[in-house]
């Protein structure tokens, strides 16, 4: 009876404790599911990278499998600037998507004239509400995010994951 009540509350007993990738808030980062997996390997090494076209020289973000400018397949990994300036920002207290702790601070960042990456929407962490100002400098920072399982024949492999954000330069 107790079991039945629990099932009624959780809704889909068959899925209890199951990883549902369709509801995952983070990317598939592993080689099994992504051809741009070096981006995530580079994140683990503290590097912010993307792909550059060997044919036309175009640097794109996010990294790709073909160059969006000339459709060449010959691409190489290059590093991007890790410092950016806050153009404008927004702080969310209520209504942040589940998984993002309020205050959720997002900023419109610019990377300077010389950077191939001109602007980006970046999450700002390690920062209190009201602390960040327009014109402030922020820097790239990485952190781990929850791992997920994948089936490899009869075994389960656990894929560790990482992601990036920005933090104020103090």
């Amino acid at each position, binding site marked *: 009876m107790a079991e039945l009540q629990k099932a009624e509350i959780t809704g889909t007993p068959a899925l209890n404790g199951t990883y549902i990738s369709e509801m995952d808030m*983070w990317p598939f980062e592993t080689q099994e599911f992504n051809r741009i997996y070096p981006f995530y390997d580079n994140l683990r090494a503290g590097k912010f990278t993307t792909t550059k076209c060997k044919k036309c020289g175009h640097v794109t973000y*996010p990294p790709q499998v073909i160059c969006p400018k000339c459709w060449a397949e010959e691409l190489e990994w290059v590093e991007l600037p890790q410092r950016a300036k806050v153009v*404008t920002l*927004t702080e969310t207290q209520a209504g942040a*998507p*589940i998984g993002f702790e309020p205050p959720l601070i*997002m900023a419109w960042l610019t990377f300077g004239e010389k950077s191939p990456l001109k602007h980006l*929407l970046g*999450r700002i962490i390690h920062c209190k509400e009201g602390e960040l100002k327009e014109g402030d400098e922020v820097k790239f920072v990485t952190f781990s995010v929850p791992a997920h399982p994948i089936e490899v024949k009869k075994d389960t492999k656990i894929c560790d994951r990482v992601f990036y954000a920005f933090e104020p330069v103090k």
Partner: protein
Amino acid sequence: MAQKKNAVIVGGGTSKFGVRQAHILDMIQEAARACANDIPGLKPADIDGLIVATTMAGRHSSALNTAPLVVHRLGLKPTSLCIRLDTLCAGSNSAVIVAKGMIESGIAEVILITGAEKVYMPQRWETNYTQLAVNDHDWDSAMGLGVPPPFFAMIAKMHMKRYGTTKEQMAHVSVTNYAYGDGHVNGHFAGRTLTMEQALEARLIADPFGLYDCCPLSDGASAIIVASEERAKAMSDKPLVYLRGTGQHATHSMSAGWPGDTLAEWPHLKKAGEVAFKNAKLTPKDMDVIQTHDCFTISEIIELEELGFCNKGEGGAFAASGAIGINGVIPTNTDGGLLVYGHPFGASGARQAIEICKQLQGRAIHQVKNAAFGLTHNLSGTCAQHTVVVYGKEPVK
């Protein structure tokens, strides 16, 4: 070669928009019934093409291949076209572009376009969470970009900084749209009124937006009939409203590809508008009434600029001058728009088309005198794509 046919919008209707106690397929049936009420000569057997515009049906209603479900529930037997289409907030407006081409080419004769969303789930968190999947999930969404207010709040801050736009000017948009919403009983906020004081004193949602600067997310469905001129005449004696020109422009999916100098410039909308006006052989000056994507008050202000109804940067002052009112230079969102009628993503474009159809047929609730030319516009995603359709009482010659 056979001569190109003319495509017209015959009429349409919506379900009640709001937080609904209904399944997405229930609401589509309500919208189809409302559409038939609007076009007494319409028989389901006349419909040879179906386009279903929805974004969330797959995730929220477990209805990935939605069109056959609609075929079954509406008793249709389409022979020319039966598809689901998704461009998020521009779904049914995109469907108008497809329908126009299908009818002008003679492939289809009578197309039903229905747009619908079931947004609200048994637990409210799931709606916000689903929003992570409508942006560029692995990149912007992983930064926390889900529901739109934070992104558009940054757009508003930038527009205020660069062009001096004020909260009062933005409030003029919401107050005007609430006045237009009066009488539209199916609107999400039907029966509500708004004063300048209420707009300016409302609780903060995302600085600088108060509650009334933001449109609601809505459950709801809309349905319209797009047909050849000949078939339209056979099913309705109302004035013909022609689909004159369309434009759709997308430039990116995530923030790194934003095409403007800053967030306050939307060159991709400017381009979509130029293409639509060129195809329609008209200019912004020819327009009598327009429906633009007022997901936020600032959106309507920037759309007035980029679509060419005022100079860049002057949208705030233009709106506040009364230009968007019923006796203004360009009455805008005359059924209350997204701000008041509500916003079930895939349903909004067709809802706008219904209002332009009624305006040009001279039977709108807030009728613009002698309206002959009109326009609908949707943006989709985090302002990644723009869709524009131009209508007229005469076809392009």
